[in-house]
């Protein structure tokens, strides 16, 4: 009797719908998460609609206007113009797409590699675990930006190479997270039950363990998204990754560097965009963690 009462079936009762609503409520409790969500929605809108809603779409595709160089912010040019007479607002908004896509690709690829390696290490244990985790540690010790630069330098610039390069230094975090979660979940009775049925290792991992650890992985993906965007921008800044005229926040910042003291608006606004993205995804990630992984709350 008492065991039943302690377990509290009431907390497990209720449909998925009420759970979802409870999650939404918890999310709304924190106004920072809501701000994060708003920022992310705004960025997604800019990424999807960017090239069509900007005031000067010709500047996005490389058009220049030498008569309008270095105009300060005004009604016509909300963020001013750069050394080529291009509207900085248009470039920043249009740059959202590349930054978000590259950031998302990095996080997704890193999560896939990390989950695969972490799941095998955590489930098999023993020397396989040792070997995989030492390899993971090794990757973790490599400075990520340098590694990314080396890979980009070896494979040449371009978005796919850049994504690959950053992902290579990004997956160890996911591998460690997933390994720990898998080690905890593989002792669950329902996993033993699957083993007693005669289910194979692949089936147990894919059907019984992974579905029960998606929450922390999604939370980490959201938290990492901001940093991934920052890393993409860093590589753009040092000239690896996206090539002009494709607008990208990091490369915009890099081009503006030389004119910073006099024409501050050319650098400040791309910088603000990067800041906003990192900030927004972090707030959203924190909010998601509160909803999906309540044990990890402060």
């Amino acid at each position: 009797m008492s065991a039943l009462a302690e377990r509290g079936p009431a907390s497990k009762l209720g449909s998925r719908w009420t759970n979802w609503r409870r999650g939404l409520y918890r999310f709304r409790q924190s106004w920072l998460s809501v701000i994060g969500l708003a920022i992310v929605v705004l960025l997604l809108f800019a990424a999807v609609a960017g090239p069509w809603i900007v005031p000067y779409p010709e500047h996005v595709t490389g058009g220049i206007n030498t008569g309008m160089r270095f105009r300060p912010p005004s009604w016509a040019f909300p963020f001013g113009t750069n050394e080529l007479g291009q509207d900085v607002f248009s470039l920043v908004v249009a740059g959202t797409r590349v930054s978000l896509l590259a950031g998302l690709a990095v996080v997704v690829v890193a999560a896939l590699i990390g989950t695969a390696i972490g799941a095998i290490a955590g489930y098999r244990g023993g020397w396989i675990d040792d070997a995989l985790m030492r390899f993971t540690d090794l990757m973790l010790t490599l400075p990520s930006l340098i590694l990314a630069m080396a890979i980009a330098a070896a494979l040449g610039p371009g978005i796919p190479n850049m994504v690959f390069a950053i992902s290579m230094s990004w997956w160890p975090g996911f591998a460690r997270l997933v390994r720990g979660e898998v080690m905890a979940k593989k002792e669950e009775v329902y996993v033993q039950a699957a083993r007693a049925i005669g289910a194979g290792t692949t089936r147990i991992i894919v059907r019984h363990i992974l579905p029960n650890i998606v929450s922390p992985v999604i939370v980490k993906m959201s938290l990492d998204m901001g940093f991934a965007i920052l890393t993409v921008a860093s590589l753009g800044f040092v000239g690896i990754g996206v090539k002009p005229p494709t607008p990208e926040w990091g490369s915009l910042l890099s081009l503006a560097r030389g004119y910073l003291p006099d024409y501050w608006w050319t650098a400040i606004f791309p910088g603000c965009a990067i800041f906003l993205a990192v900030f927004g995804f972090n707030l959203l990630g924190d909010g998601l963690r509160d909803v999906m992984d309540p044990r990890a709350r402060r």
Partner: protein
Amino acid sequence: MLEIRGLSKHYPGRRGSKGVDALKDVSLSITKRESFGLVGESGSGKTTLTRCVLGLEPPTAGSIIFDGVDLASLSPAAMRAMRARIQIVFQDPYASLNPRMTAHDIVAEPMIVHRDTLRLDRRQRSDRVVELLDLVGLGEQHLHRFPHEFSGGQRQRIGIARALSVNPELLVLDEPTSALDVSVQAQVLNLLHALQERLHLTYLFISHDLGVIRYVCDRVALIYRGEIVEQGPAGDIFDRPGSDYGRMLIAAMPEPDPDRSPFRTPA
């Protein structure tokens, strides 16, 4: 049907400690279509024994012979097929069902794993899931619900349906009612009893609850610290326990007759 001969299981301790002998030279034999009760307190080796029978744990010594075949001699593939014939219902229905799978998927999974022997396609499996849920007293409306939407008793019924889905001959019941409310316990026990009649099952019923064992089992073994201290027909053990441990256990049993209860104050 199931012969356990001289089964021992030793868990090595960490450096410096001696480790634990969870089972010491246990021998049992269970005949077809009987309910065999295994009674013991926490840590007595009940669970280790079931894990060995299910092949989840390799025994240190001794053999487990099921239907004339030594389980240790089976190839991994043959052992997989054998798992369909020996199934288990777990103690805790809150932990033994995957929270991310629907009742349908939970009950259908063993049939997918054993599709080579059962040869059922997707439609046939789904039909059989409905049949099985009906058999354990659940309905079609429960098919696509998740475990957290069920009560403890209903979850245990799903656990029973899962175990039955592959037509097992031996069902290991690892304290199937001890996590349930008393009123629900009786319902689940009645269900198990009816299923045994209907499906000609053999039960290995593990419990620390003597009342439950007495109600369900034909023969009983008492296990204490990894050793069988007594075994025999249920009536004999409950009426004339032969060992000190048996006498102690029986004496500790609550008295079902209210007139003889120690809590009854004379009017």
